[in-house]
């Protein structure tokens, strides 16, 4: 197992280098650069040239690339042109917010997805199955940003009762610092509800579809018939025998949905003013803030590869028949 993990980690290195190289090239192909993006257009060309020089943007492309790569591997993420502070600070502020939002969404995706899928499979072709199938396909087809905007409009409507007026922007309320510890937790949870819902619900619908299929397949297996023949209660048959086996393929979905989650966070974080990595990346692209774009893409790459590795290893843990070596 450890050897397997080590090999996978080693394999990830060229992939990550490939990712950052590709992004570096794409970024420099896009018109404009930080010096023009960051200045208002009234500033004279001399000042812009001076700025370019200060930022090292006057050097040949391969030189910029090598220099960036070198400092990157020594742990120096560089300096954000548009935020006037080290990229490491940008990440330190933004990454925890993104991880929190993603983690909550991930739980939502798998808990809601598995629960709905399981109910659908057990009550196959019932009215409940048909309705939830329709709803999950509907939700699955909805773009996240649009759903987000609709949620914002709905929860801002004067018709919404006061206690249901969930926050639509930010991580905490403006008076967070004046709250007691319990109030603070409640405040944070309230702020998480809408963004994590908008970010996760489409994927949850997807997981539900997989779960339904997977459980249906298991239910028709011989050993389930055996379990029923033994006289076990239906509840025990489903929960203990069928569900555990049906969950195995679902674990591999983790590797599939995490990239979607991080991709979606770019849009959802902008819509809900969530100060995370997705939004930092979005702003950095508009400002042509190369170091932030590179660092953020790299981190997303690491997270996605890490999630894939985790999914594969979990797979082996859950299903003893699978050997990693």
């Amino acid at each position, binding site marked *: 197992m450890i050897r397997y993990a080590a090999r996978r980690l080693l394999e990830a290195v060229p992939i990550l280098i490939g990712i950052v190289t590709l992004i570096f090239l794409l970024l420099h192909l896009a018109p404009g650069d930080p010096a023009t993006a960051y*200045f208002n*257009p*009234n500033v004279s060309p001399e000042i812009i040239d001076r700025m370019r020089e200060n930022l090292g943007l006057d050097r040949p492309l391969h030189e910029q690339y090598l220099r960036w790569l070198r400092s990157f591997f020594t742990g120096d993420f560089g300096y954000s042109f548009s935020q006037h502070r080290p990229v490491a600070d940008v990440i330190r502020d933004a990454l925890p917010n993104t991880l929190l939002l993603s983690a909550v969404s991930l739980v939502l995706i798998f808990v809601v997805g598995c629960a709905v899928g399981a109910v659908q499979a057990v009550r196959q072709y019932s009215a409940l199955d048909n309705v939830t199938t329709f709803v999950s396909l509907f939700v699955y087809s909805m773009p996240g940003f649009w759903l987000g905007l609709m949620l914002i409009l709905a929860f*801002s409507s004067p018709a919404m009762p006061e206690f249901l007026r969930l926050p639509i922007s930010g991580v905490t309320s*403006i008076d967070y610092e004046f709250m007691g510890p319990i109030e603070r937790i409640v405040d944070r949870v309230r702020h998480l509800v809408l963004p994590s819902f908008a970010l996760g619900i489409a994927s949850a619908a997807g997981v539900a579809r997989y779960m339904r299929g997977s459980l249906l397949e298991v239910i028709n297996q011989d050993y389930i018939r055996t379990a029923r023949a033994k006289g076990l209660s239906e509840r025990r048959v489903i929960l203990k025998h069928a569900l555990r086996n049906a969950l195995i393929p679902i674990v591999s979905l983790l590797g599939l949905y995490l990239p979607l989650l991080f991709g979606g966070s770019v849009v959802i974080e*902008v819509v809900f003013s969530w100060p995370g990595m997705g*939004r930092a990346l979005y702003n950095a692209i508009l400002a*042509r803030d190369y170091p932030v774009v590179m660092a953020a893409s790299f981190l997303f790459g690491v997270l996605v590869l890490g999630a894939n590795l985790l999914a594969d290893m979990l797979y082996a843990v859950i299903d003893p028949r699978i050997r990693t070596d």
Partner: protein
Amino acid sequence: MRPHAYFAVVRKGRSADRIVSPTRRIVAQDTLARPGWSAWRVRRALTLLSLASTGWVACGGGGGRDEGAAPLILGYTADLQTLNPLVSTDQNANDLIYHLLYTPLVAYDSTYRVRPWLAESWEFEGKSVVFTLRDDVRWHDGEPVTAHDVKFTFDMAKDERSGSPLGAVYLADVTDAEVLDQHRVRFTLASLGSQPLESFYWPPVPRHLLEDVPPEEMSRHPFGRSPVGSGPYRLVRWQAGEQLVFEENEAFAPSLGGPPAIGRVLYRIVPERTTLLSEFIRGEVDVYGTIGPSEVERVENAEGAGVVAFPWRMFTYIGWNTRQEPFDSAEMRTALALALDRRELREAVLGGRGSPASGPIPPWHPLAPGLEPLPYAPDSAAAILEALGWRDSDGDGGRERGGRPLEFTLLTVGTSPVLADLAQIVQAQLARVGVLVQPQLLEWQTVLGRHRARDFDAVLTNWVLDNFRVDPRPLFHSSQAARDGSANRSSYANPVADSLMDLGVTLAEESEAREVWAEFARILQRDQPITFLFWNEDLAGLRAGLEGVRMDARGELVTLPRWRWASTDREEAP
């Protein structure tokens, strides 16, 4: 991103409390609908007891200043870059820097004339000017603001290595600074001109905190994120991408108005407009800066809110590439300008707000020449085109000459709804005189890049004036016509215009300068290197119950230190 983020326009400065029209629910004042706020107040009441010993309550309190504890919440879509005045280039940050955090040497009054600020007086001695600073202004860390700070800031700005736009934009005509004593500093100017004091609208930074910083490190120094200023507010916290928290500077010089009325100001960053608009309507944001024309109706219909319109330093124009056919002919450019119905353009995209433009000096400026813009005269336009040989010989509705149709690409910023709409109306208007326009909508950076590289036929875009100094040379001087990346992107070159601009910026007598600028505007109107469409107007959403608000071309926040919550609010306060 800035230029097309504004949909502003210019009209005479009006104060907000009068603008919010009576039809707009000001009636609801005594039952001020501030849902988010009332909830906040309840929660605050609960937490107040446990906070009684902290500095926050203390600084908000004080006899009869209870309303000072209610924070003012500003909502903006753009994140801020830096609050170091030496290296700041973005307008939103500059509003905070100039009006909240620091004290510039001079300021502008509501007629856009220079008035004393940190400098209480000045005296001209030949080509130099001696400023006497107030002795009661202190940095937020308690140190006094002195002439040494002023000189340090000047030297740093002039040092090319710092890459400070301050040095290039404001201080081009100032050659030297010399400290006479603690509170007096002498500046030497290359030439006086009609507006010598305009060069000093910038705030000093604290020397004692920054003197060891190498110039080339200035833009990276953490000072920009945790500034120590000298203005009516100090920054207490900067949560990147979320909010900036300002608190009143209780020691702010009484001669400059003393501590502000509202003790706490939050600058919230909400990047998505729909979200920000919703927050404003919910009452979670008190001032929604830079609303778009399409959002006006929702803001006006919101409970306890209104719209403020105020002049802005931005004009919208079509730039012609005078280096290439057919725009190398002034007659051709004039014909196209005559064929544009600018009133219709303004009606369509700004709901009629804004004002006509006839040159680069805004109509509300003290030096405005008062020249009438070209009329809408499609018949004259058609006659000129005929005379130039452009005729519709094949009867297809489009003109051609020597077999070549009269058509061109109009480049503009697709992400700006206002410009994108404008481009289509321009297309329709020019089609009426047989000119075929192909709008091309691109992302802002790409448009700017092509405009700078002079890789365009015609471009529809905005121009924002940095300040109130009249100096159109970067835009129109022939020395800039062929220069890489210069602002004279239409490559306009006319020796008469050159000499008028060179003369205009040196004339000390205002009436003479005004005459020269009027003549310059006439020449510009005849040559039409760019066609001015209109001066924009800016719009802001404002919570009812805020008093003393006045927004004008100086910026939205210019009077913020004197804003206060209406007395009804105070009566409700616990």
